[in-house]
């Protein structure tokens, strides 16, 4: 299974919310724009975090694909992990 995550830089507006959900996979630059450190996700844990980041991005800039097809983000990947 090849799951790939990338940030579309044309959509990213520097909210940096992705870094809250996927802190070890995303680098934030001095203006808040994110960049994925390693696009290929090898663990299920990393895939879960990337999907949460994708669901949380207000601009839909975090794109996750599996075998080249976009993975829909939403209900299966709740971002309210604290339960509130």
């Amino acid at each position, binding site marked *: 299974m090849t799951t*790939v995550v*990338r940030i*579309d*830089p*044309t*959509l*990213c*507006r*520097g909210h940096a919310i992705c870094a809250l959900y996927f802190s070890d996979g995303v680098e934030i*630059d*001095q*203006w*808040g*724009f994110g*960049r994925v450190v390693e696009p290929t996700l090898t663990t299920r844990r990393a895939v879960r975090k990337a999907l949460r980041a994708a669901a949380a991005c207000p601009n839909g800039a975090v*794109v996750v*694909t599996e075998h*080249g097809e*976009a993975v829909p983000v939403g209900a299966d990947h709740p971002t309210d992990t604290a339960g509130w």
Partner: protein
Amino acid sequence: MIDLADLLAASAQVSAAPGGRAPDAVAVGGLGDPGTVLLSGPGTGSGPESLDAHLDRWAGLPVLDGAQVLALLRAGGLDGRGGGGFPLARKVAAALASGGPPVLLVNASESEPASAKDATLCACRPHLVLDGAALVAAALGVDHVVVHLHRGAGAPVDGISRAVAERRGGGHDVVAWTVSLGPDRYVSGEASAIAGYVHDGDARPRFAMAPLAVEGPTGRPTVVVNAETVAQLGVMARIGPRAWAALGTGGSPGPRLLTVAGAVDRPGRVVELVGPGTVGDVLAGTGCTAAPAAVLVGGFAGTWLSGDEAWQAPYERSALACLGAGPGCGLLGVLPHGACALVETARIVGYLAGESAGQCGTCVAGLPRLASAMSSLADGTFRRRGLRRIETLGDELLGSGACAHPDGVVRLVRSTLEVFRDDVVRHLAGEQCRGADHPPVLPVPVPHPAGAGPRPQEHFS
């Protein structure tokens, strides 16, 4: 399985092959000069070559099916001449493997302000370009080719339009041609920007998870191929892949087109290098008698090399790669002794910063800051910690965009700081710059004001 021997035998009958060449002979010449291949024929000022004249000189294009064209591309090892150097055979194969009818676009826009090789081909040898494009169309199994140019280009637009009209009139091709004219901006000549523009009229680069050849903006595999690349194929189909490859070197098959700019006898002249020549051979053919101070290799997003290093360097991809450079768009910008590379680079970076399409945050925020840092380094109002600032900006800009525009600027800046270390030290120490009063060397357009005027989209449609 295609029998290449058949293909070679079929193509060997064409007389246009440069016969009797010694294997290591080097020729450098412009339009119509002896020893040239793509530029052979009428000289400058003769306008676009007519279809009849073209066919008289080159004979008809061999009729090849798709598999034969692909075999030809593989045998010749034709690399892309737009800047990336990606092998055309692999691009075509990727598009064929991706399913769905492909889209074929010829990129004749040549956004690089100092480069004129594609413009020269389109203006003077348009049928060679269209011949090669028709072959790629056969390889992809498509019957429609779009040739894209900048709308303000002038002579290249006339050349291609006339050639297309001639071929339509004579029923010369099975493919249908469309000439697409887009905005005159630097990044709107980028492959995804052209593919996008032809699709929906927005000439800004696109972010995509897959390469264009796998899935373009239309959802179909999209092959964007440079005008010189297809013209090379037009030659290769006639003289055969081995004879064609032998016109270059082992590491860089085929003849190469270059534009020389800066301190040469005729800046902006396009020359063809045939055989295993060095950068020095090319410059010696364009009025330089000794190594200049430095040479900008590969375009505005290219690499500076010191004059001595460049002079000795074989002009081929692998040899230039050892020096951290590449042929890029084929530009050699000659910096004379007495001019300051930091001043020249600051002008280029200022121009490139204004050419951002305004889409990606890091490019929008970072490039103007990098430009202003380079400009204060050039005018000597810079302190040492500014160098670390340039380093940090470079790290953040590299790979940050949907296209490679910021990467190219960073490459130029880093090669400047590396090659002109001594000048940087002198500028930091506040010494009088020797080149401050030197007139501008490279033809850098007036920068577009970043973030001013109409919204970015309006410049890109």
